[in-house]
């Protein structure tokens, strides 16, 4: 056993000398106090190296063993220090009281060094175990705080739905990849390229900040999963990772809301001489979703026919136009007003596709 530091608290010089002598002979360092008050002052003195065990007499002037024990157990810094009560011949009742108050053990005043060695050793082991436990709990607390911080940081970079998915139980399986019907929405700005060439870079950035500031909250409000945004364009999908039975309607409702909200922003920029309008393409179909990318940089992404179709439709859309695919129209028919926008021959698609332009939502509320 490695020697520890033991504080001997006893008002009688005889007892202190004897205990110090015995403790030293079995390899411990000692500190002495004549009463409880002195002991507490030593234990609370930051300049004093902390002790491992306290040997405490009961009957003492100034502050007796009971009061000292009470003060120790009430002090969060000292509460875990093992206290061994040292007792005289007929003090069994006092010992019981001390143990009820939290003392670890008791010893007679003239104790055999082997017993002293064993009892102090046991108390020190218990304390080390306790310290270890406390340390582990502290580490765990720090770890959990880090996870919490990472999760909230993650939520700033990912869609809230994806951030929640990462920390959920079935997150790994979902990230590994799955097939699901989704509605994908592509949105970008007409004339953005010429605007960014003509305007000052500060102006472009200022505009993008305002644009994202308006569009971002709308996506969150409609609970879309933002897959990516780059400059003026972004892609959002619905029905994944959170299931949304009305995903087609939601996507269209988001597009209509964006068009409405963008009107104010567009009008403001028109005054400065820049004509900017949004164009949206929406398509519904099966896609493979999950972790896409490479070690070091993954995104939660979607791959499939519907995504490509939505991107093509967004490219086809005129200023302020929301073009939707036939399957999206079929799914949202009751909730929207449309005008047929003709059959379009789109790049990568063998046959012309009938396309619809959304004019308005039929009801303001989303279907439940």
């Amino acid at each position, binding site marked *: 056993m490695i020697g520890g530091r033991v504080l001997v608290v006893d008002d*009688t*010089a*005889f*007892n202190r*000398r*004897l205990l110090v*002598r015995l403790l030293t002979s079995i390899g411990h360092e000692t500190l002495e106090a004549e009463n409880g008050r002195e002991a507490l002052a030593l234990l609370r003195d930051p300049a004093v190296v902390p002790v491992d065990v306290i040997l405490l007499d009961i009957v003492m002037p100034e502050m007796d063993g009971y009061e000292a024990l009470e003060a120790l157990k009430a002090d969060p810094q000292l509460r875990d220090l093992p206290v061994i009560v040292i007792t005289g011949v007929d003090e069994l009742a006092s010992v019981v009281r001390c143990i009820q108050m939290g003392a670890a053990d008791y010893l007679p005043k*003239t104790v055999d060094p082997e017993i002293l060695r064993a009892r102090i050793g046991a108390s020190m082991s218990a304390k080390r175990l306790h310290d270890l436990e406390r340390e582990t709990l502290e580490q765990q607390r720090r770890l959990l705080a880090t996870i919490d911080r990472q999760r909230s940081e993650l939520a700033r970079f990912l869609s809230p739905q994806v951030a929640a998915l990462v920390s959920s139980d079935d997150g790994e399986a979902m990230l590994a990849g799955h097939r699901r019907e989704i509605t994908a929405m592509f949105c970008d700005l007409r004339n953005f390229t010429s605007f960014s060439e003509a305007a000052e870079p500060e102006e472009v950035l200022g505009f993008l900040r305002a644009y994202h500031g308006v569009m971002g909250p709308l996506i969150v409000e409609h609970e879309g999963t933002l897959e990516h945004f780059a400059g003026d364009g972004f892609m959002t999908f619905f029905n994944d990772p959170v299931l949304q039975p009305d995903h087609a309607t939601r996507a269209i409702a988001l597009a209509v809301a964006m068009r409405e909200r963008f009107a104010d922003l567009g009008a403001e920029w028109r005054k400065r001489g820049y004509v900017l309008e949004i164009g949206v393409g929406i398509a519904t179909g099966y896609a493979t979703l999950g972790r896409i990318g490479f070690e070091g940089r993954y995104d939660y992404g979607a791959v499939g026919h519907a995504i490509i179709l939505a991107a093509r439709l967004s490219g086809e859309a005129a200023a302020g136009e929301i073009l939707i695919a036939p399957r999206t129209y079929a799914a949202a028919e009751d909730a929207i007003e449309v005008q047929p926008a003709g059959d379009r021959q789109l790049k990568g698609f063998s046959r012309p596709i009938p396309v619809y332009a959304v004019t308005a939502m039929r009801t303001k509320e989303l279907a439940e």
Partner: protein
Amino acid sequence: MSEAILDPAAFAHLLAITGDDLEFVDELVDTYFDDAVIQLEAMRKAAENGDAEALVRPAHSLKSSSANIGASTLSEACRSLEADGRTGVVPDFAGRVTDCEATFAAVRSALLAERASR
């Protein structure tokens, strides 16, 4: 009389637990003498004032250290005084403290005689 005053077993125990370090035990005994004088003074003062409460702590302390050194008679006398002190009524207060003083003197003589005889 001297056998009852000093229990050789307690003294031998003290010697055994210190690894037969006579020099240290002698120092310890001297500490006991110094301490006993202080406690007896406090007990004397308590008796003079008729203060039973003030008797408890010094009687307790002297009881304990006397037991450790093997002064059984003195330890027992102190135990009884401590117990009475706690009740608040100490019959023959001054007389019993005087007895303790006399017993201590005898203990001291016996211990010093033992030391001189080596």
